[in-house]
């Protein structure tokens, strides 16, 4: 118990507070800028932590992670350029709301959902890490495969009216994920002998191109007059937001749970949590017809899920030493440099540092909400900036973000090419989100399936029985079934 009290004094010390605030603010900025995200931000600030007291270093990085996850929603709502893959679903409803003059409303819901989801994830992490870690281990290749299938089934919720175009989009994404080295056979695929293609296509330049650059190209070719969005913006009180969130508590809770659980599974991150919770929200929401046109549930679900995943991703890291996401993998590095090996011993040997990180994350959520809410008015001013300035700024920042993913000029080229592809998609009404989903999930789905096949063969089992006859698999199969049935019902009802 006294560890928690010690942790409080650490996080509320002047240095601890300052670093937390710095982390969160930087995180929000990184998240909002297209192409940059929490991973890049944490990698950039990592060297600064080498000479710091480890508790302080972790407080700062944790704050950055939390802030960046929320930050993506800002550009998603205002510019239709999700700053991170985790904000892709937020753009689907946030931007239409902004165009209807409801930007403040969308931003308020985004930050408060992020806050509540984030809080949920961190509290679960605080209370249940050991149990949850054991639970996470039970997810082997068979279960992970089914989680990926569940994610892919969400495509049905993202498709809109034209099913064929939706399938095309996700197939396109799946093919993109194949390019590069295949882990299982250690062979190159679809690389055409090109060294750059051999290392595979990175998600960041592609999503930056398909979302941000394509959006700017659309604006460019639209002969827009001046302001980004001409609809006058209504005010929307924070209190009203809170009351609404209270009414919609079911979806908030469900999405937070989904986010936390997916965050706990190593190898999956905020993006997958977002898509799955979005799909589930659409299936069960009363506003489901509004999804894609400005449904508030369509913001609450993804934003709470991705921030809940932050807390979740620390569960396997702190208890088993296995990072739950790419960002927490880099934070792993921050621990090892100080000689702390993440794993079962970490809790016992460095309890103070672990608690400082956990408590620090709680505080980061609060800071994030305060910064986000007070910044809403400032953020919406972006809408008044002339497109003359927005377009070059976003394109330049996006290309910069594309480069910084892997320090590769090739990725800049990829971003430009996919910007054009995205423009074509948008002009022909092919949905872009399924392509991104396909890209995120393609490799993971295939890898887990093939590993399951290898293990099943070694055990002399039929692949079907290996995957299906396990307790967790059965639960997942039921969820997949529910999702598919839900999507079928919505699509067969005709008008969307």
């Amino acid at each position: 118990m006294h560890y928690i009290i010690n942790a409080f004094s650490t996080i509320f010390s002047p240095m601890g507070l300052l670093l937390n605030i710095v982390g969160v603010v930087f995180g929000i900025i990184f998240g909002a800028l297209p192409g940059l995200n929490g991973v890049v931000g944490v990698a950039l600030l990592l060297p600064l932590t080498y000479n710091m007291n480890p508790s302080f270093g972790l407080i700062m990085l944790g704050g950055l992670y939390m802030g960046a996850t929320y930050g993506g929603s800002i550009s998603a709502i205002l510019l239709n350029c999700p700053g991170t893959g985790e904000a892709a679903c937020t753009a689907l409803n946030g931007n239409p709301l902004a165009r209807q003059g409801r930007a403040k409303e969308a931003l308020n819901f985004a930050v408060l959902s992020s806050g509540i989801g984030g809080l949920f994830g961190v509290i679960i992490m605080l209370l249940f890490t050991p149990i949850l870690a054991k639970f996470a281990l039970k997810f082997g290749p068979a279960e992970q495969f089914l989680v990926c299938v569940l994610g892919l089934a969400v495509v049905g919720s993202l498709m809109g009216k034209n099913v064929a175009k939706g399938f095309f989009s996700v197939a396109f994404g799946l093919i993109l994920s194949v390019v590069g080295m295949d882990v299982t056979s250690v062979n190159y695929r679809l690389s055409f002998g090109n060294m750059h293609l051999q290392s595979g296509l990175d998600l960041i330049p592609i999503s930056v191109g398909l979302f941000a650059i394509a959006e700017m190209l659309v604006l460019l070719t639209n002969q827009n007059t001046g302001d980004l969005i001409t609809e006058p913006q209504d005010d929307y009180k924070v209190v009203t937001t809170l009351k609404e969130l209270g009414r919609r508590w079911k979806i908030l809770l469900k999405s937070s749970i989904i986010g936390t659980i997916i965050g706990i599974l190593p190898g999956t991150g905020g993006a997958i949590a977002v898509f799955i919770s979005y799909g589930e929200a659409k299936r069960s929401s009363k506003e489901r017809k509004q999804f894609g046109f400005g449904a508030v549930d369509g913001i609450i679900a993804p934003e709470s899920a991705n921030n809940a995943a932050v807390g979740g991703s620390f569960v396997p890291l702190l208890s088993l030493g296995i990072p739950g996401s790419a960002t927490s993998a880099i934070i792993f590095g921050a621990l090892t440099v100080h000689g702390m090996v993440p794993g079962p011993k970490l809790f016992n040997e460095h309890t103070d540092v672990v608690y400082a990180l956990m408590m620090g994350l709680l505080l980061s959520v609060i800071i994030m909400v305060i910064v986000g809410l007070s910044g809403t008015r400032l953020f919406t001013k972006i809408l008044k900036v002339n497109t003359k300035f927005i377009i070059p700024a976003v394109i330049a920042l996006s290309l910069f973000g594309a480069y910084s993913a892997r320090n590769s000029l090739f990725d800049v080229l990829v971003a430009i090419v996919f910007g054009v592809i995205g423009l074509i998609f948008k002009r022909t009404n092919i949905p872009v989100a399924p392509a991104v989903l396909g890209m995120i999930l393609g490799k993971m789905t295939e890898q887990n399936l093939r590993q399951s096949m290898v293990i099943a063969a070694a055990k002399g089992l039929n692949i079907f029985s290996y995957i299906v006859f396990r307790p967790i698999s059965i639960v997942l199969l039921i969820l997949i079934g529910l999702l598919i049935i839900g999507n079928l019902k919505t699509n067969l009802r005709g008008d969307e």
Partner: protein
Amino acid sequence: MKKFVITILTVLMVSTMVFAQGKVETGAQYPTKGIQFIVPYAAGGGTDSLMRLLAKAMEEELGQSVTIVNKAGGLGQVGLTELSRAKNDGYTIGALSNLDHILVLFTSDNVSYDYDSLEYLGAINTTANIMYANSKNTGFTSAEEMFAYAKQNPGRLTVSISGKTHLAEVALLEQAAGIKLTPVMQGSGNDSLKAILGGHVDLAVMDKNFVAQVQGQGVVPLATFSDARITPVTEVPTFTELGYSIATETYRVMVAPKGTPAEICATLTATIKKVSSTDEFIEKMRNMSENYRFLDAEQVKARLDNDYRAVQKLLEEVPGAFN
């Protein structure tokens, strides 16, 4: 007109960002400006963490910035291709992992550099891989028990691995012990850890650093692939002791593009030796579970040549080892 303005503004902004360069100072002694250090692996991994430690120490010694640039992909191929094509003026250097490097040269297609495209400057660490077993599920507490079972049940034991080095080690082990295992390829050591802790595979080959992480969780180290017992896990026997003649080790080598002037190479090697041999540095390495072992340019080349010949021999005797 508006579109023209937008285009010009975009080009200007992008150019500023892309072409931003560090300051170049005039002076005589190397180094006179910042050095780029290419790490051909992702940030946060073992090679990356160690090289960041080294780069920081070199920075303090040389008085110029030594910036780590991560260029991951293809088991180091992407980063090393870039390094081999970089200007050989001593301002771009890099690191590689010995077996990954050699295996790429032997088994990958379209590799645009070869063994002689790099100057090998030195090495500071040595580590080895260990065969772990999930003793809760398999009941194995020693290598002998595993071998006995494997001989009776060819192909039934699954072993999680990450990377071609482990594939080579498993192939050598199969050859030496006359057994057949089923490798399950993962993306990283952490994936193998998760697979074996969760009981989804029977065995795993991972770095010795995971011994601390698996303690008390039903996973035990059976034996190590190094030629002698390795600290800090000196309780783990070597396969060699048990009668199977396999010996592999992993060490990171600092490299520069071919043709980098000899004096600069010598300066770099000497700097690395100086900064890594301090008590403080060795202590920091130990905190990262890395064993300090310095090799200078000739020594590291000799060892690499040895590894090269060993892999060559393996491929001659077992051509399908890496499929």
